[in-house]
């Protein structure tokens, strides 16, 4: 039974890791099974380092934005919503979580298109100048929202938001209300209670959610391909290297970057007790 995982999954994973040390023969296009570090040296080329850095920055930004958006909703669901309203909210978060990734991505293609709903809304609100201003900002702009880094960022946040809401909600639900009352009785203002009681206790939930937002952003190659400018993210490079170029060793070496980053992240999260909130 566990052989399924043992053999197929782990076996494949190790085959991948082993591949990272092989190299592609430039002449024949065949994989040469000699142990070496040429792929890791190639990783340090500026273009590759640059896209690794960009992907990690994006993952951090997406994680932070998801936390900020998820917190009020999660808090409201855990502390204020009751009965039918709570069930409705729960379903409202669950449905996008489980429903089709591609369809939701497609929806954003519609929304962000130059002639799409967001441009229309901006015109109706006479805020076209604001949109133009955002799009002309160097690092995040582009010809239209669907071809800008800003667009990629919005879609990432949208896609992974439910993964953040649910663990935070679970963590906040676990805080006994007597703790909050005690904090208020001892003279803490609501803001103080929030900062020194709720936030630290909700942190495992944030950590658990951020595992998803972080790792999903690092590995995704479809969103930046459909929405965004032509800069490459880690996922896209891995995908192209193994697909078009057939360079599995290099793709394997590059996919070690997210594995290592996530490994470190998981280890940190475990120390914060994130797994209890999953």
């Amino acid at each position: 039974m566990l052989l399924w995982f043992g053999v197929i999954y782990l076996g494949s994973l190790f085959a991948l890791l082993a591949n990272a040390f092989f190299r592609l023969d430039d002449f024949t296009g065949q994989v040469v099974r000699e142990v070496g570090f040429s792929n890791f040296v190639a990783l340090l080329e500026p273009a590759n380092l640059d896209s690794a850095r960009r992907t990690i920055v994006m993952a951090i930004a997406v994680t932070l934005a998801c936390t900020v958006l998820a917190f009020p909703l999660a808090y409201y669901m855990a502390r204020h919503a009751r009965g039918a309203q709570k069930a409705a909210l729960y379903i409202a978060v669950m449905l996008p979580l489980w429903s089709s990734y591609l369809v939701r991505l497609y929806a954003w293609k519609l929304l962000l298109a130059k002639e799409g709903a967001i441009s229309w809304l901006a015109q109706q609100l006479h805020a076209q100048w604001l949109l133009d201003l955002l799009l002309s900002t160097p690092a995040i702009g582009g010809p239209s929202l669907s071809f800008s880094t800003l667009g990629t960022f919005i879609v990432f946040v949208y896609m992974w938001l439910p993964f953040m809401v649910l663990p935070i909600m679970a963590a906040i639900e676990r805080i006994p209300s007597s703790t909050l009352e005690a904090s208020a009785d001892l003279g803490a203002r609501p803001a103080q209670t929030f900062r020194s009681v709720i936030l630290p206790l909700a942190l495992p939930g944030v950590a658990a959610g951020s595992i998803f937002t972080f790792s999903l952003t690092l590995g995704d190659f479809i969103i930046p391909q459909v929405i965004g400018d032509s800069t490459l993210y880690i996922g896209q490079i891995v995908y192209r290297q193994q697909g078009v170029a057939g360079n599995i060793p290099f793709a394997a070496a590059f996919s070690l970057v997210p594995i290592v980053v996530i490994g470190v992240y998981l280890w940190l999260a475990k120390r914060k007790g994130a797994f209890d909130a999953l």
Partner: protein
Amino acid sequence: MRSNWLRWCAWAVVLFLHIPLALIVLYAFSAEDKSYVFPPPALTTQWFAVAWEREDVWAAIKLSFQVAACSTAVALVLGTLAAAALARASFFGRDVISLLLILPIALPGIITGIALRSGLHTLEIPFSFWTIVIGHATFCVVVVFNNAVARLRRLNPNLIEASMDLGADGFQTVRYIILPQMGSALLAGALLAFALSFDEVIVTTFTAGQQTTLPLWMLQELIRPRQRPVTNVVAVVIIALTFIPILVAYLLTRADEPGHR
């Protein structure tokens, strides 16, 4: 005052999550077929008829159904067994195995995909229908496992002991005591696994050969839009097909969810 403000924030985030989906439904009726212009100039139902006639869409839907059914079946067996092994017993390596079980969803899909691809390549297994199933089963197992474990932990151990005391053998206990109580959780896990497999795209791109599942069809349209109206209709169909199992699964396991304990 404060709770009012919070309520607005909460519902705003919910709107953010759902407006794109509503928009898809609107676009399926749009009469405009060349661009994504908003608001749609006129509404029509003709694209549903056009999509209905498309052979390639039907073939993709059929393939996705078969893949999802097979990988759900595999996941159901393996996930239940894994849950049974891990729920109560504590043995050497238990934590390792439970960490192993969440790996396929904690690691990005591209890594699972590329790992499986190079694994299959090394073993010289040609890509086929069954390699897609293997790929999907790895993460479907996790879903079934999670649901089964949540339910197993809530089972009353006394019932199992009573059954054994009354002379039932292990098989009978499983058949008459454990399985009936597990039923709805397993069904829910299976439905979620089905929904997940039905629209999985990342692992599929790595493990499929010439086959085109529905998500792969959709991905082609996303990268090179050819027939926008048909894509819009297919998107609505996918929403409908995945929402139903998710809602049913939710209703079946409501009691297992943290908020209702």
